[in-house]
């Protein structure tokens, strides 16, 4: 396997409602310029471009196509797209570099969740014959999962509020968060339910955003970056979506991805978890064997900013940032997709 590193990362300052078009160009152009300039690799020399986004977030077919016009795709570029969080676009780019066809890649994700009614849109992600017609929205499904854990004695509402409070504290220090106010656990427990047992801050905020990351291989990475974040492991797995068949209090795919990536075997300084609901952080910590010595989601994560389709990439970006700035040696970024942690991706990064 080739050595591949994250050499730069940039994200749009997340917003609750971006005053721009759903094709994301206004968010992407400056963010891409920032990431590419920081990478030290001239735009025209980047070997491969790959993005992640969703037509249903944008409300139209082929919605990613206009974003290509933000790249400066001339002369024609080597480019691809996944209808998934950009963390999986990163995976495709990493594989492309592994084939030896290219030495660098620029990956981007974007989404304007505020344009539609996200909870209703996400219902369309379910089995269209048996489940979607019942109309269970994303928050209600997460609530079922949270309730299952409480009933099984695995966590309490207080444990969930604890996760939420910690996220809000982190958000207060993070310019990219859209929730910037700290709250105590008791304050949080005093709020009404949104969908029992979930309260407002157990759920993610609607967020518009975009992020961009540049990868480079071997010596190129060393040339352009003083402390590249080397990708040591990159794994992803998916579970069945048949919710009635699953033990919702665990995530097999997260456990498998983490085990394959060697996360459970070794100490991590930082683990940026993509957990849109507070109880899901608890599930992921257990599934991945994340110990007490690891700083968990210091950015605040999805509970303080949840830009759909770039949020997972941003977890990896935040994990890479800690390597770049020298405050960590071994970090992990995680991304999730589908209801109740159905699909999970793990990317382990190290400084040299």
């Amino acid at each position: 396997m080739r050595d591949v590193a994250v050499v730069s990362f940039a994200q749009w300052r997340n917003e609750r409602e971006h005053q721009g078009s759903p094709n994301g160009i206004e968010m992407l152009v400056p963010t891409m310029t920032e990431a590419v300039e920081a990478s030290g690799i001239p735009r025209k020399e980047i070997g491969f471009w790959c993005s992640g986004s969703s037509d249903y977030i944008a409300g139209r077919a082929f919605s990613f196509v206009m974003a290509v016009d933000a790249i400066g795709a001339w002369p024609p570029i080597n480019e691809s797209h996944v209808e998934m969080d950009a963390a999986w676009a990163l995976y495709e780019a990493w594989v492309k570099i592994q084939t030896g066809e290219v030495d660098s890649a620029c990956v981007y994700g974007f989404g304007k969740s505020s344009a539609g009614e996200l909870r209703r849109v996400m219902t369309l992600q379910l089995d269209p014959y048996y489940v979607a017609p019942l109309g269970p929205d994303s928050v209600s499904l997460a609530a079922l999962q949270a309730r299952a854990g409480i009933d099984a004695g695995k966590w309490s509402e207080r444990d969930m509020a604890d996760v939420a409070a910690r996220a809000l504290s982190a958000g207060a220090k993070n310019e990219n968060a859209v929730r910037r106010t700290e709250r105590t656990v008791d304050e949080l427990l005093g709020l009404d339910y949104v969908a029992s047992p979930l309260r407002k801050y157990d759920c993610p905020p609607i967020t518009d955003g975009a992020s961009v990351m540049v990868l480079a291989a071997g010596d190129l990475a060393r040339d352009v970056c003083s402390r590249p974040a080397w990708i040591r492991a990159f794994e992803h797995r998916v579970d069945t979506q048949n919710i009635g068949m699953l033990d919702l209090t665990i995530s097999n795919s997260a456990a498998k991805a983490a085990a394959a990536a060697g996360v459970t075997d070794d100490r991590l300084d930082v683990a940026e978890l993509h957990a849109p609901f507070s109880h899901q952080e608890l599930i992921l910590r257990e599934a991945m064997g994340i110990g007490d010595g690891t700083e968990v989601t210091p950015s605040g994560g999805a509970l303080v900013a949840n830009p759909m389709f770039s949020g997972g990439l941003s977890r990896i970006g935040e994990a890479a940032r800690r390597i770049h700035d020298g405050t960590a040696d071994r970090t992990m970024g995680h991304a999730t997709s589908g209801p109740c942690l159905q699909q999970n991706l793990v990317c382990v990064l190290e400084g040299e």
Partner: protein
Amino acid sequence: MTEPVTMITTPMELTYQYTVGPVETQFQRRLKEGRIVGQRCPVCQHVYVPPRGACPADGVPTEEDVELPDRGIVTTFCVVNVPFLGQKIEPPYVAAHILLDGADITFQHLILGCPADEVRMGMRVEAVWKPREEWTFSMENIDHFKPTGEPDAPFESYRHFT
């Protein structure tokens, strides 16, 4: 004994708010004033209409306004005969690529004012605007383009736009 269910129909309705970016907003505002204003890319110097915030070749914002006339040529076109769900204009109609004088890219609009089979590539056309009081933030302020009667542009002059 009942028949097995092999088909279900689940109507889904989703509402989206479509927001136009700042550059397009400005373009639409000017359309409401009856002006067509494109933008030039500082790197390649090409004039884009409608302007789009970033030059697709260079990835940089196009910031220089260029006022364009409401006349130009048809570079190519087709005659739409087929009806379909969501269609807003009654067929048959001529959907044409219009290259305004001074622009480096075409946009699509309607041709009326002559029989469909008389529309030609290279035909010079001018905009027929709706009454001013109907103007809004849209290219639809121009009801259609009609032939001016001037001689057609020679093919070689617009060949590289097709």
